[in-house]
């Protein structure tokens, strides 16, 4: 009995020892090494699933889509899940538009993450997954992705810009507002089963993506289409080195249309040459020529150096100053300020400048925004070039008065002319109306008052005479509306110094209706090979402006002025004379 009891005791002791061992092991695994094994398990089954944010759209002021996203899929492979690469390739190849041997080679890997193909259409991707499920195969997975599409192609390309393969903006609004457009990627911690499917019950921490904001531009695509068509026609007809046109609202500074040639298709930006990528409206500076005469005229009037009745002797077309002869296109005697602008007299403008103090004149140039960036939200804007008085020589002042020895950008010229149109206030160019839903439109505030409303009004009235039979731009007329504006014809600067013979940048900057301007336009044609006798702002740029403005006022439904209604009833000459 004793022996039996001893044996039972021994067995019990052994059992106790064994179960104590088991218990210890259990405590060791579940308690002491809990964190370590949890991490190991999480590494094996738990992954951080990125939830991409949708890139915001770019819209015009009326909600027309200018940049959108096309959802596509990126197909990836997990080599550890692939048992028969050839069979999988045979099923998937047609959906991925690849050959079976090519795909088989890519799938013959043990790496857990291999990108097989990007930008696979949703239909093909889902078709592939269904075919794989039917064949009982696994190893290929889908990731969400999107490609950016610009439905209008080349239209507005310089404003919109484009994005690179990583989805980041490279140019235009895409670059400048990349942060707002891109949004914030979200994530979800998930666990998956051995087939790679998510186990929804074990979903962990989740952060939803912050979708990119839709950007609403001030651009009106109706006007943009008009501008593009006319600029395109000019570019094809005259074959200039470049052409630029801008339409703006002079009262708010909103840019309504902006087009440059040469241009490119942002859907295929890789094929574009560097000169096509340049937004000439903000990256190119040019000598403005006579359009710059508005600066000296308003400055001299505003300072009281001349008044509406002052007459300036224009030396009958040849003025000797600083050892050089300054010439006018036609000889003139005494001219008023209004006539100086109408006839675009270089001598009259130079004499007004000479009456002003250097610093005062320079101050006005700067007050118009020349020599500084306008702050338009586009990449690559330059400041232009305005030398301070201490760097002037004897001729600089007279040259600046007629738009030489100074370099401006087209957008600066639009804003300067807008300030004459709106009563003397310099506006900041506005290209973005809102960023995402709920973001209100910002209040429009002028940058500064450049000249008094009276001065601006007088010069605006004088600019109406430019667009008359006596002025330099009768071809800028728009039937039914009074137009005010100024032509510019400037010789191109040679890279070696001096000017290039027979090569010109011609422009016309104008606004309408002249009394209550609603539309400001600038047309620049750079180096059209048409011969010196025809290459004038009034002959080349002004007609383009007229065509653009004629269609734009009808598009905007601006009521024709009453004078024209009279003209239609037979008093054309009387009515037209009354508007100038």
């Amino acid at each position, binding site marked *: 009995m004793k022996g039996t009891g001893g044996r039972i005791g021994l067995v019990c002791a052994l059992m106790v020892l064994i179960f104590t061992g088991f218990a210890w092991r259990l405590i060791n695994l579940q308690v002491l090494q809990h964190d370590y094994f949890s991490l190991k398990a999480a590494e094996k089954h738990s992954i951080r699933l990125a939830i991409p944010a949708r890139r915001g759209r770019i819209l015009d002021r009326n909600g027309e889509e200018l940049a959108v996203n096309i959802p596509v899929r990126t197909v990836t492979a997990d080599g550890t899940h692939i048992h028969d690469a050839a069979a999988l390739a045979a099923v998937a190849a047609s959906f991925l538009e690849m050959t079976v041997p090519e795909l088989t080679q890519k799938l013959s890997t043990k790496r857990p993450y291999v990108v097989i193909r990007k930008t696979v259409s*949703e239909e093909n991707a889902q078709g592939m997954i269904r075919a794989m499920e039917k064949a009982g195969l696994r190893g290929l997975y889908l990731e*969400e992705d999107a490609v950016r599409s610009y439905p209008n192609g080349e239209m507005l390309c310089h404003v919109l810009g484009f994005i690179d393969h990583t989805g980041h903006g490279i140019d235009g609004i895409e670059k400048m507002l990349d942060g707002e457009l891109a949004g914030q990627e979200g994530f979800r911690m998930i666990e998956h089963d051995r087939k790679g499917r998510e186990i929804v019950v074990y979903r962990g921490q989740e952060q939803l993506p912050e979708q990119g904001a839709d950007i609403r531009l001030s651009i009106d695509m109706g006007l943009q*289409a008009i501008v593009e068509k006319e600029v395109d026609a000019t570019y094809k007809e005259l074959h200039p080195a470049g052409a630029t046109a801008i339409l703006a609202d002079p009262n708010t500074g909103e840019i309504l249309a902006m087009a440059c040639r040469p241009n490119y298709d942002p859907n295929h930006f890789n094929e574009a040459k560097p000169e096509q990528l340049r937004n000439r409206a903000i990256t190119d500076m040019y000598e403005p020529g006579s359009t710059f005469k508005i600066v000296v005229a308003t400055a001299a009037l505003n300072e009281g150096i001349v008044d509406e009745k002052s007459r300036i002797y224009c030396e009958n077309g040849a003025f000797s100053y600083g050892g050089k002869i300054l010439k006018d296109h036609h000889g003139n005697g005494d001219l008023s300020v209004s006539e100086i602008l109408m006839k675009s007299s270089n001598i009259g403008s130079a004499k007004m400048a000479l009456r002003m103090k250097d610093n005062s004149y320079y101050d006005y140039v700067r007050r118009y925004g020349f020599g500084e960036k306008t702050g338009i939200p586009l990449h690559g804007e330059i400041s232009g070039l305005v030398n301070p008085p201490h760097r002037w020589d004897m001729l600089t002042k007279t040259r600046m008065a007629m738009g030489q020895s100074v370099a401006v950008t087209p957008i600066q010229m639009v804003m300067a002319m807008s300030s004459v149109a709106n009563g003397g206030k310099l506006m900041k160019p506005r290209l973005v109306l809102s960023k995402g839903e709920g973001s209100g439109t910002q209040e429009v505030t002028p940058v500064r008052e450049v000249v008094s409303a009276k001065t601006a009004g007088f010069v605006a009235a004088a600019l109406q005479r430019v667009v008359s039979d006596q002025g330099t731009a009768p071809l800028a007329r728009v039937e039914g509306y009074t137009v005010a504006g100024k032509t510019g014809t400037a010789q191109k600067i040679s890279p070696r110094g001096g000017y290039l013979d027979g090569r010109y940048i011609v422009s016309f900057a104008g606004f309408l209706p002249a009394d209550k301007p609603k539309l400001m336009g600038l047309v620049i044609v750079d180096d059209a090979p048409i011969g010196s006798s025809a290459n004038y702002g009034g002959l080349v740029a002004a007609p383009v402006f007229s065509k653009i403005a004629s269609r734009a006022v009808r598009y905007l439904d*601006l009521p024709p002025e009453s004078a024209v209604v009279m003209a239609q009833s037979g008093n054309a000459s009387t009515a037209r004379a009354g508007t100038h």
Partner: protein
Amino acid sequence: MNKNRRRTTNSLEVNVLARVIIGAFLVGMAALFFVYLKNQQHAVGNQARLTEAALREAQAKNEGLKARITAMTSRGALQRRLDEGYIKLDAIRDTAIARVTPAVAAEEDGVLRTASRDPASRFGPGAPQRTINR
């Protein structure tokens, strides 16, 4: 003998046994119910996953179709169609246009608008009520 046998036989306590059996049954049922619920949870989770995938697929298809519509109706596309002669623009002379409403000058509300976006000339549910005087 009978006496001894009676002494060594334990009486069956039905109440206790019933309680144990019922307790075990309840625990067993609870465990089974837990397993059932867990299975249901997984099944519902799986359904949710499939529904989410279907929703994503539908959304992606919708986005794709919207992008295609945008591309096909964009100004560039319409211009191309116009150039190719698939569509045609007929000019309407000024004299052939009957203006339903007077032109709205922009300064009245500070908004630049086209004729087609003039709220007064819009038809449909959003159009303002008109009174027709005969």
